[in-house]
């Protein structure tokens, strides 16, 4: 019993049946991702071949139809094609939008979450719920005036427009998440700092922030996931000069002829940053998605 508890979360060692069911379902669920990445390494002719092939087997100089079952001969030519088509600038603009909004979110959210977590204002609870209500305002409820305001400010097809919107989009999540991390700082620490006569700024930057550094990172990661994948504001407010990675993918909506391998190469590059970040932030993911409510 004691051993079972120290062995980590979860029910006792599962019967083999459960393990098999779990693995099979996980592989089915994961198959589209695997198939996307596999297709990105094929020639266009191999990409449409059935039965589906998803195991790269280098070194065999065979026609796609003569390869052993489920295998294909990998090539990086699709990635080269996509890069030649100007994928790079889209990628860099996505990075800029994510980083720009990430910095703005931190500047606004850290002080706010700090004050709310330590009850420095009356009505801290109302303020928290004000932020969550802004998160639940559907983008379609504000897109028309946002479009017109951005047009009048000459910000259409300008990355700044996306930075502004992504900041508003991630601000409530960041405040709720950071608040939950701040609240985990032992009250003794804060009291000790107050007794020492540290002002709020010193308290915040020197004492508390280093303690919640993992929380800050997790918050940045969650914000990055949402901003990187965002499409609605991008398609509404940008066209060419400020178009981000999701906008590049529009080119594949009405493509003719064989294009799956190229689509897969672009899609793999588009999704990879967030998948890697999400995998590495798995433990914090649920906290961010539930706005800090579930730990």
């Amino acid at each position, binding site marked *: 019993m004691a051993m079972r508890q120290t062995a980590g979360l979860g029910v006792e060692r599962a019967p083999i049946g459960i393990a098999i069911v779990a693995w099979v379902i996980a592989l089915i669920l994961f198959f589209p991702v695997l198939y996307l990445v596999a297709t990105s390494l094929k020639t266009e002719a191999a990409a449409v071949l059935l039965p589906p092939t998803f195991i790269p087997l280098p070194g065999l100089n065979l026609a796609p139809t003569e390869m052993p079952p489920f295998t294909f001969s990998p090539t990086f030519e699709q990635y080269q094609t996509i890069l030649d088509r100007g994928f790079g600038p889209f990628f860099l603009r996505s990075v800029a939008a994510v980083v720009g909004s990430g910095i703005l979110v931190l500047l606004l959210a850290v002080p706010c979450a700090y004050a709310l977590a330590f009850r420095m204002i009356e009505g801290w609870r109302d303020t928290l719920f004000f932020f969550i209500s802004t998160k639940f305002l559907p983008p379609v409820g504000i897109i028309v005036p946002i479009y017109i305001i951005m047009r009048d400010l000459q910000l259409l097809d300008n990355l700044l427009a996306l930075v502004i919107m992504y900041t*508003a989009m991630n601000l409530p999540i960041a405040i709720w998440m950071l608040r939950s991390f701040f609240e985990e700082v032992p009250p003794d620490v804060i009291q000790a700092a107050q007794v020492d006569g540290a002002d709020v700024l010193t308290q915040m930057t020197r004492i508390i922030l280093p303690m919640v550094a993992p929380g800050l990172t997790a918050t940045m990661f969650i914000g990055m996931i949402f901003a990187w994948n965002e499409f609605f504001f991008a398609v509404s407010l940008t066209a060419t000069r400020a178009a981000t990675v999701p906008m590049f993918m529009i080119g594949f909506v009405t493509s003719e002829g064989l294009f799956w391998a190229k689509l897969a190469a672009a899609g793999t590059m588009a999704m990879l940053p967030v998948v890697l970040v999400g995998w590495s932030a798995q433990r914090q993911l649920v906290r961010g998605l539930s706005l800090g409510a579930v*730990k």
Partner: protein
Amino acid sequence: MTTQSRALTLAGRRAPPLPLVGALRNWSVGKSLVAPAVIYAIIVTQLPFLLTVWYSLLRWNLLRPDNVQFAGLDNYLFVVTTDPVFWSALVNTVILTGGSVILALVLGLLFAELVNHRYPGRGIVRTMFITPFLIMPVVSALTWKNMLLNPVFGVVDYLMQLVHLPAVDWLAQFPLTAIMGIVVWRWAPFMMLILLAGMQSLSEEIREAARVDGVSGIQEFRYIVLPHLNRFIQLGALLGSVYIVQEFDSIYMTTQGGPGTSSTNLPFLIYQVAFAKKDVGEASALGVIVVILTILAVQYLLRVLTSLTEGD
């Protein structure tokens, strides 16, 4: 730490043990820390929504920018009585949201139960389960549309032919069902994460005690796990609803609302009215309607979240 000293320090956190002057100073510092974020959120989200309400009362088409008139409730009347797409888009939105949330919850519950056991490679299984939620939605929509659901070269139809089922052009014949499949694939992992956190907060001793008392696996799940998960199920359902009501990416990338308007939901309709028809008044009226519908759902969600933040 003893309970008493913890209570003391918690009280200290609420009202810092400083003289009155210090408390006042702290109060104003607190306000200046909160103000920038509040002002930003008001300017970028609240004021534009008030403008949406105002625009919804205007006759204003961007194709005829000089002809802006006050129209009263005409836009709402048009949407509700004349617009042939509004009601079907409303029904599609409700079906897509409700169906996806329920399916994602059921699957998420199954996944969470599977990941909550110990067996070799559980970490890898868990990672595979959450990955669909991380994939850029426009990429997953294009992947499903082409490599999986294409009626000639897609994997799904290939598998169906293996068992002698007729070929189906999913996105043409059953567009809403196909889109729901893509949405559920993305959101079941989300539900799994929330429900798994719930399961792991359930004390193993309680399950153990039930097992000692001879409770069957199904009874244990029905009478111990599910009631405990109640709050988490509600949280998942409501967060999921708020996000899936806004579903846009997968529709834009697969069917563009078609064939006809059979897979048009309210967000996609608003996008079309705003950016193809360029009708500011009508798009705004539709936007206000969506916000009102969302507020009704959110009211309930806020109550759940309040109980969660007060519960701990």
